[in-house]
């Protein structure tokens, strides 16, 4: 039984037949994982958002697959991670084979004390279904299916859009437009913007196969396996007894011929053995690019996700980086719309996410060069690595079947303040928060739960916390752009005027290199803005203002 695709009904928008175009603060183009995440984020922050999508269902067929821990943490902040984790297949171990021999294994989350797993695998249609449900339950999200953008006219103070629907066209005026309309982004084309980057000369066959099998829930990657002459193969488990198999075909392969069941089925049978029973659920042949837009902000039009950057699939860096774009942009756009930050704050979206895109493109390009060597000499070097890897630990670390998505620490961010006092490790400014298990009111809780509402500060307290210190940070919640503080302590603290959590395991102190008196300020996207060895409310306010792009 296959997935039953929902048909989202068309509802006539109020602008149909109106004489003057309605003005909206934000229009998001594209209801994929990136556009929906951004819309939920903006609405959660009190900003109304219209989402336009030309289709009336979720992603068709087999596309995005692996969702990383940081992405799940973002979706948890948006209130929709739990059903995804419940439905998804949780995994953290990858194994690499050369021929018939295992040469390398990696564990993507070797330490405990995190709420979310390293990865889940989940079909994109399930994922989008969860996001659509969440968006529909969020006040302030106006989700419009079968609303196709037909024209875009950027101006200095906004963007004019013309939209086509089954019941006719209308015009809409947006203060800001975010194009989340995918790799072939019509918005990007309409604005005449070009991509820079490389196209890789290789073709891969994706087959989603329905079968019951007892492979472990791990990522298995083969270089030159005996069942697939000369090419690499990747195997992943998905929910509903569906398995994803990727076969490297080479540039000379004929994509149409390779998609035919009479070619695909024997290929899979050779891999799984003559007795394996399976059905094909989805087959496609793809090639890929590693490239990005030069800039992600073009005046009042912003680009996020595949419309802004593309990578190879090895490393799960596509959808994950797109959702992290939305995480970065949501609070900034909300702050600009609320008049709490200058428009120039959005230039930091460009610089921070370009840094992330470059990191993803670099990792993805390196993996692709390892998987598909460009000439005989590179293939010889690659094979030498794989042969040595069987016995030599140093060579195992060179094996690259995809370095899996990690969030970018914005090392050069203009929003970060320098450390006050010295830190050895911990979480530096620009990096995303690290989770840790805590106790609140006698119940298990997570550190990230303290960082879900705008700017937050964690005060790491010793046994004898000065009460006036806590009163001083509690007052930050009354600022026009509040900072909500919480106390993290190794021992119980009574009667403090802010949320208090007990770090029984010591992991929170350890992960932030904290000592009694340490303060860490987090941005609304849970990245660190500043940290200090002592509490200084004036310094926290300065760091918050810097993170809002205000020049002192």
């Amino acid at each position, binding site marked *: 039984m296959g997935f039953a695709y929902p048909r989202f009904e068309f509802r006539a928008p109020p602008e149909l037949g109106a004489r003057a175009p309605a003005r909206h603060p934000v229009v998001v183009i594209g209801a994929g994982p990136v556009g929906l995440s951004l819309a939920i984020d903006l609405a959660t922050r009190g900003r109304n958002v219209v989402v336009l999508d030309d289709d009336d269902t979720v992603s068709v067929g087999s596309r995005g697959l692996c969702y990383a821990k940081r992405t799940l943490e973002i979706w948890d902040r948006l209130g929709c991670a739990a059903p995804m984790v419940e439905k998804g297949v949780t995994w953290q171990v990858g194994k690499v084979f050369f021929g018939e021999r295992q040469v390398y294994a990696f564990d993507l989350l070797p330490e405990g004390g995190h709420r979310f797993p390293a990865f889940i695998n989940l079909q994109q249609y399930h994922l989008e279904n969860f996001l659509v449900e969440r968006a529909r339950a969020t006040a302030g999200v106006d989700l419009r299916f079968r609303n196709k953008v037909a024209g875009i006219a950027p101006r200095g103070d906004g963007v004019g859009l013309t939209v086509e629907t089954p019941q006719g066209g209308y015009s809409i005026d947006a203060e800001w437009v975010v194009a989340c309309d995918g790799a072939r982004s019509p918005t990007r084309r309409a604005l005449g913007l070009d991509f820079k980057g490389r196209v890789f000369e290789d073709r891969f066959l994706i087959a989603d196969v329905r079968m019951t099998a007892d492979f472990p829930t791990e990522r298995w990657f083969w270089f030159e396996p005996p069942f697939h002459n000369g090419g690499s193969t990747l195997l992943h488990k998905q929910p509903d007894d569906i398995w994803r198999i990727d076969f490297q075909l080479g540039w000379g392969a004929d994509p149409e011929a390779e998609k035919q069941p009479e070619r695909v089925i024997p290929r899979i049978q050779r891999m799984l053995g003559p007795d394996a029973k399976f059905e094909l659920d989805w087959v496609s042949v793809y090639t890929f690019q590693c490239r990005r837009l030069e800039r992600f902000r073009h005046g009042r039009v912003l680009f996020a996700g595949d419309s802004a950057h593309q990578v190879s699939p090895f490393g799960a860096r596509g959808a994950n980086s797109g959702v992290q774009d939305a995480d970065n942009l949501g609070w900034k756009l909300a702050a600009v719309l609320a008049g709490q930050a200058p428009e120039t704050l959005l230039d930091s979206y460009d610089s921070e996410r370009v840094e992330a895109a470059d990191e993803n493109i670099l990792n993805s390009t390196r993996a692709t060069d390892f998987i598909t060597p460009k000439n005989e*000499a590179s293939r*010889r*070097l690659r*094979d*030498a*690595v794989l*042969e*040595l890897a069987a016995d*030599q630990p*140093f*060579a195992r670390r*060179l094996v690259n079947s995809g370095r899996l998505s990690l969030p970018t620490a914005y090392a050069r961010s203009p929003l970060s303040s320098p450390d006050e006092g010295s830190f050895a490790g911990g979480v530096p400014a620009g990096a995303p928060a690290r989770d840790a298990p805590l106790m609140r009111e006698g119940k298990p809780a997570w550190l990230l739960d303290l960082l879900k509402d705008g700017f937050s500060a964690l005060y790491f307290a010793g046994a004898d916390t000065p009460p006036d210190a806590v009163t001083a940070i509690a007052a930050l919640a009354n600022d026009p752009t509040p900072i909500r503080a919480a106390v993290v302590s190794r021992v119980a603290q009574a009667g403090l005027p802010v949320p208090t959590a007990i770090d029984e395991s010591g992991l929170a102190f350890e992960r932030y290199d904290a000592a009694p008196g340490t303060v860490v300020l987090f941005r609304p996207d849970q990245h660190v803005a500043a940290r200090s060895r002592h509490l200084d409310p004036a310094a926290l306010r300065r760091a918050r203002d810097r993170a809002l792009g205000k020049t002192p």
Partner: protein
Amino acid sequence: MTKLRTTPAPGNPDDLYEALVDARRDLDEAQAAALDAKLVLLLANHIGDVDVVREAIALARKR
């Protein structure tokens, strides 16, 4: 600043060269190329400094 040492290393140079020649005495082109690839990886890891390796690559690529 260059870090790659190009002055003669201590020890008998003829012993060093003989070891490298002997390693490929019974190999054909493809086997020798595979040997060289493994040697490069082993020695580059032993050096452990990518700047030194880059300097060596630059010198080796000079025509």
